[in-house]
């Protein structure tokens, strides 16, 4: 995603017909440490210079019963030597740590793809839990794929034997053994993993040694074992060239991390300290966790008693002169609705982050969806306009968070920043920006008392329509604000008809006017006036972009327009959209942006909807584009894909982000996924 410097030309693309990316899925029991294995594999892949995207999928149950189908935890990574923007349509390699992991995931594997299985776990008991009548490793049912099975459990036990661990503890090193093998397969360095293990288990050198031994044993197994030599395309090394990328410093980042960092950066650029009021909710809690560790950056975090108190405290903090921020997911945002209206009425800065999940109600707590766009744009009582920004990827969320802070503080308004469960949990490489390249937007608190005989006007407005921000404690500027309609200028209670009309207009004009202070809409890929434009927002960026890229490489007249500013929309967007023959809007909802575009511009936007809690696959969008260009229907519904993550039997999940190695600093409570 972030590393790709440029698009390949069709000629370049055809000059390299070999696969430039590989999709690997790790699957096992939720106790097997799959998220951790995937996270560390991600890190080593990023360090090797490949671009990548990941999809973590793990069960709802904190401790799901061992070996069961609903206890399967999976982690998919797509990495390659070109720009990677999705977690991949179909895995090339499946690493199955137990029968349940195999059963749940094998149908997703590409025909001819490679299965690596731990035969040590394919005993009668586990086969029964996975509802296998016969052992699939031996009954020939996996003939469509290449199968490599060996006793990873036993090999791990042998490797860690010198350290005298108990059986259970020794077996927990299995994931490191598997990681070692995977590192060998793709020619990745073990060094960063060793460093990380040393840091993680600094207090128990024995565990460091055991895990490193397992890691090395897995690696050596790949290096020395003869297996595969007699199997066509068997166990062998694949070396992928690094992806073309701009020079600079890179790191991996999840959406939750980059939003947290972006909020801190925004508060520094605004030169105002941040107050974050939050309440635990999946998948938004990670932002509260990250920010709570950053006290030295002037961040105060407050875990409130409920979602309402979280937003209300943030409003109180903004009133008192800090940057109030709150974060939640759909159900929590619904609870915050009335208070957001108060922030609109009192015209105080506030950033609300919504990590969207499947709805309505409790819905799908950890599955991704984009179905809160109506809620963001329209979801309050009264005429209550509020700017809305949507992040397209983990890395993009950093700039979006800064933009949200800028708009909130410059225009004295709440701003909603939309992300989703996929962005929050997925990791991608991120070119660390140079903060010197960001123009500060310092807040100017009003401090000067009006001249003798002149009244202070708390609802006086500047050229942008913003009212002054006054900190309580400032002499001479005493005033009262509240949720009751304000008199223009004075802010006193005023129910007069003409005043309510004027204030409603003022609130609308202020927010509409932000369109003049955001970038014009660019064509993300392609040009104006194509036969078809695919318009997207949020995390559908990846699959849309790749689909359009592929089809343009095949000469199709299609362009991609990705919208970051959902409200107000960019000033030129209407004209731009009208230049295209057809407008296709893929969304992980039933057509919400489509409705807004139709409403705002009277254009014939057609929806392509997928509401299965699964991100779009590139191929699905490609097919819809081909169909539309071929004279068929524009848009339609994409049905659930049982081979895609999240899978059909993996339960709901608690949304814990256990890709701990990628976190800002290691968390104390994320150990369940570790070989310890």
């Amino acid at each position, binding site marked *: 995603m972030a590393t790709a410097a440029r698009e390949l030309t069709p000629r370049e693309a055809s000059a390299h017909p070999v696969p430039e990316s590989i999709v690997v899925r790790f699957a096992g029991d939720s106790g097997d440490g799959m998220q951790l294995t995937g996270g560390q594999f991600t890190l080593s892949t990023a360090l090797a210079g490949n671009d990548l995207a990941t999809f973590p999928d793990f069960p709802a149950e904190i401790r799901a019963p061992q070996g069961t189908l609903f206890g399967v935890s999976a982690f998919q990574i797509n990495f390659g030597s070109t720009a990677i923007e999705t977690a991949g349509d179909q895995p090339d390699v499946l690493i199955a740590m137990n029968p349940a992991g195999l059963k749940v995931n094998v149908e997703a594997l590409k025909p001819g793809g490679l299965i690596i299985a731990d035969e040590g776990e394919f005993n009668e008991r586990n086969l029964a839990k996975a509802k296998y009548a016969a052992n699939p490793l031996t009954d020939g049912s996996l003939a469509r794929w290449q199968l490599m099975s060996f006793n990873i459990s036993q090999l791990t036990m042998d490797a860690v034997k010198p350290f005298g661990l108990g059986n259970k503890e020794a077996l927990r090193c299995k994931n490191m053994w598997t990681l070692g093998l995977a590192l060998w397969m793709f020619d990745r360095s073990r060094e960063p993993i060793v460093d990380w293990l040393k840091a993680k288990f600094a207090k128990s050198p024995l565990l460091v040694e055991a895990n490193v031994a397992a890691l090395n044993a897995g690696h050596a197994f790949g290096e020395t074992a003869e297996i595969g030599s007699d199997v066509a395309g068997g166990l062998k090394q694949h070396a992928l060239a690094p992806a073309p990328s701009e020079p600079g410093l890179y790191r991996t980042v999840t959406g939750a991390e980059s939003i947290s960092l972006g909020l801190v950066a925004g508060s520094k650029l605004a030169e105002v300290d941040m107050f974050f009021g939050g309440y635990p909710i999946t998948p938004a809690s990670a932002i509260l966790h990250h920010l709570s560790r950053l006290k030295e950056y002037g961040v105060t975090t*407050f875990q409130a008693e409920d979602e309402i108190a979280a937003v209300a405290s943030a409003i109180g903090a903004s009133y008192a002169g800090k940057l109030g921020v709150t974060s939640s997911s759909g159900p929590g945002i619904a609870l915050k609705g009335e208070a957001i209206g108060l922030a609109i009425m009192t015209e105080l800065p506030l950033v609300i982050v919504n990590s969207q999940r499947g709805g309505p109600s409790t819905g799908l707590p950890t599955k991704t969806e984009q179905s809160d766009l109506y809620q963001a744009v329209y979801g309050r009582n009264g005429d209550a306009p509020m700017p809305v920004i949507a992040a397209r990827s983990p890395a993009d969320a950093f700039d979006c968070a800064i933009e949200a802070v800028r708009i909130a503080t410059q225009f004295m308004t709440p701003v909603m920043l939309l992300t989703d469960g996929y962005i929050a949990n997925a990791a991608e490489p991120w070119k660390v920006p140079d903060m010197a390249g960001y123009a500060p937007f310092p807040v100017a608190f009003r401090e000067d008392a009006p001249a003798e005989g002149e009244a202070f006007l708390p609802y006086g407005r500047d050229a942008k329509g913003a009212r002054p921000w006054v*900190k309580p*404690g400032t002499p001479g500027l005493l005033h009262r604000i509240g949720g009751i309609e304000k008199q223009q200028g004075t802010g006193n209670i005023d129910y007069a008809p003409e005043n309510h009309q004027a204030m409603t207009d003022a609130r609308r004009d202020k927010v509409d006017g932000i369109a003049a202070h955001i970038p014009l809409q660019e064509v993300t890929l392609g040009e104006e006036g194509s036969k078809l434009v695919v318009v997207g927002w949020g995390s559908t960026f990846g699959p849309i972009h790749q689909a359009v890229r592929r089809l343009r490489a095949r000469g199709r007249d299609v362009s991609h327009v990705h919208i970051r500013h959902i409200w107000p929309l960019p000033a030129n967007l209407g004209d731009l959209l009208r230049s295209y023959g057809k407008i296709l809007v893929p969304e992980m909802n039933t057509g919400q942006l489509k409705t807004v575009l139709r409403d705002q511009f009277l254009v014939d936007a057609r929806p392509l909807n997928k509401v299965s809690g699964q991100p779009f696959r590139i191929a699905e969008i490609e097919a819809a584009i081909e169909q539309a260009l071929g004279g068929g229907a524009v848009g339609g519904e994409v049905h659930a894909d049982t081979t895609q993550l999240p899978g059909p039997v993996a339960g709901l999940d608690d949304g814990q982000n256990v890709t701990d190695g990628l976190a800002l600093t290691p968390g104390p409570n994320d150990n369940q996924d570790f070989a310890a």
Partner: protein
Amino acid sequence: MNDMTAIVTKPKDWETDQEVRWCPGCGDYAVLKAVQRTMPELGVKPENTVFVSGIGCSSRFPYYMETYGFHTIHGRAPAVATGVKLANPELDVWIITGDGDALSIGGNHTMHLLRRNLDCQVLLFNNEIYGLTKGQYSPTSRVGTRSPSTPFGSVDRPANPCAFALGSGARFVARGIDVHKNLVSVLKAAHAHKGASFVEIYQNCIVYNDDVFAGFTDKKAAPAKQLWLENGKPMLFDGGAKGLALDTAALTLKVVDVEGGDWAGAGVIVHDETNRSVAHMLVEMPSDAFPVALGVLYRSPAPTFESAVVAQNAQAAKGKTADLQKLISAGQTWQVEKEPHTI
């Protein structure tokens, strides 16, 4: 805060130019006056004072105080005030709320504000009715209260504000009466207490619940039904003719007669405002057989929430420099020197 010059204000300095719009005869007027009379005695600056309210008749209060003011939304004043105080602990925060606002829609926030012990004053105007919505029964209305929503009388048992506060962990619990002269001293005590100071003010709603407190506020009834507590003083009422003693067998309070001023001989107990158990008994006294306990029922300071937050923030930040570039460059990183992939 360290300014040693005395801050001199008059009650008038705390009045705004806004026309007060409560019903004529409303107890809120008396409370407003009492607060405006209290402020000069506190030696505080209007600009450092913030009144935060929720929704209801009483919550209009901030518009009438020449201070900073925030009239928020129903039930949420404690949450907004928490943000205000955490953002700037130097501010002197007063929360104005009512029985519906604080105990019904906002009950959760009231509980957590008190348990956290945020340094602020909570003035709960209890009139046992929803006034602004035109007279429905409230969570403190007595069983049988007839109202537009309970034409046959309410059937649910009322909440007891001070018992709720004690149960929530409040470290300062007091009671006052809207028109009683002692309200100023109760407010002063509330302000002097560092931490969440909870004050229930019996406030008469002249329109929807007139005289609901007359049983102990009437001039005639007052001596026998009002027990004004003073720390270190015996719990006497009815001109010293009666007092409260401990029924050691039943572990409850009992009313005893005091003859010839010999309260000790009658077993009357001395008010120890740090005694939480007695405070519980005082707020739970049945109104028929006992007087109403007024004044400071319980006061036992504890560290405040905002001071703990500030201290922990400082401790966690100690010795660390805020280098944003370093922060975003943290974790495992790699350097791309030049475009390595050519085609």
